[in-house]
């Protein structure tokens, strides 16, 4: 079936459209973007799409964690500047972890203006030491390639943010969903 381009009724494409000189994918039907983004400064232009995976590592401020190599892959989708990350990971063993726990991101976050580069996301922990609920926050700071995991007690102000490192033990699992804007 040939493509139909008719200004009076709209356009119809039977397979895939390649933009930015991208070779249209032969699989399915859709829009193929260049493998390397051709960034547009126009606020109404969708200029990127990418799906992929990355290897996540949990790192406490103090002490250390050893990751379960079979639960260390997160997946991401990038739509324009919007990055969506999800995954389930496990610290198979820990050695006196303290402080906030950070994990790496697939893209650097935007610097933003004023404080607009911050985003606030969620994680759920399992098999934690006692004395903590299993709902955590995941904070992405501007210009950063990591997210910090912490929890709050009694309020949302920074004074109530509490470190979570001490609550990790062998086989603590973390499930993460987060969304932020890339640089």
């Amino acid at each position, binding site marked *: 079936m040939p493509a139909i381009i008719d200004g009076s009724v709209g356009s119809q494409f039977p397979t895939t459209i390649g933009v930015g000189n991208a070779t249209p994918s032969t699989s399915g039907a859709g829009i193929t973007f260049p493998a390397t983004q051709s960034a547009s400064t126009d606020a109404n232009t969708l200029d990127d799409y990418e799906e*992929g*995976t990355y*290897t996540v590592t949990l790192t406490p401020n103090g002490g250390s964690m050893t990751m379960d190599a079979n639960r260390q892959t997160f997946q*991401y989708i990038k739509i324009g500047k919007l990055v969506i990350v999800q995954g389930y990971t496990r610290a198979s063993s820990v050695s006196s972890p303290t402080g906030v726990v950070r994990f790496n991101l697939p893209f*650097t976050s935007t610097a933003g203006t004023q404080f607009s580069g911050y985003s606030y996301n969620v994680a759920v922990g399992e098999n934690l030491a006692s004395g903590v609920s299993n709902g955590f926050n995941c*904070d992405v*700071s501007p*210009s950063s*390639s990591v997210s910090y995991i912490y929890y709050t007690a009694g309020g949302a102000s920074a004074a109530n943010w509490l470190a979570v490192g001490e609550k990790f033990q062998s086989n603590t699992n973390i499930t993460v969903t987060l969304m932020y804007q890339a640089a």
Partner: protein
Amino acid sequence: MALTERNEIDQIEIVYGWNIQVRQATIIERDGEFVSRTFHRWVLTPDSDISGQEQKVQDICNAAWTPEVRQAYETFKVEQAQRMKP
């Protein structure tokens, strides 16, 4: 009919001076014809161990991470740490 798979670093980007974004493409071909491509990513910072990275990645890291950039990254980390409770 032969299916082949190869990995290649197809993108290295320097973001805000110290973040080196690396993308590895895994490309599947059938008799030399492209079939599919998947991506795996990571971001390196001046405190990353880059000894296991491909030479071209190491070269870019070493070129980008000047003493000034390393200092700026250390300042950035301190600012981040001050925002988070220990």
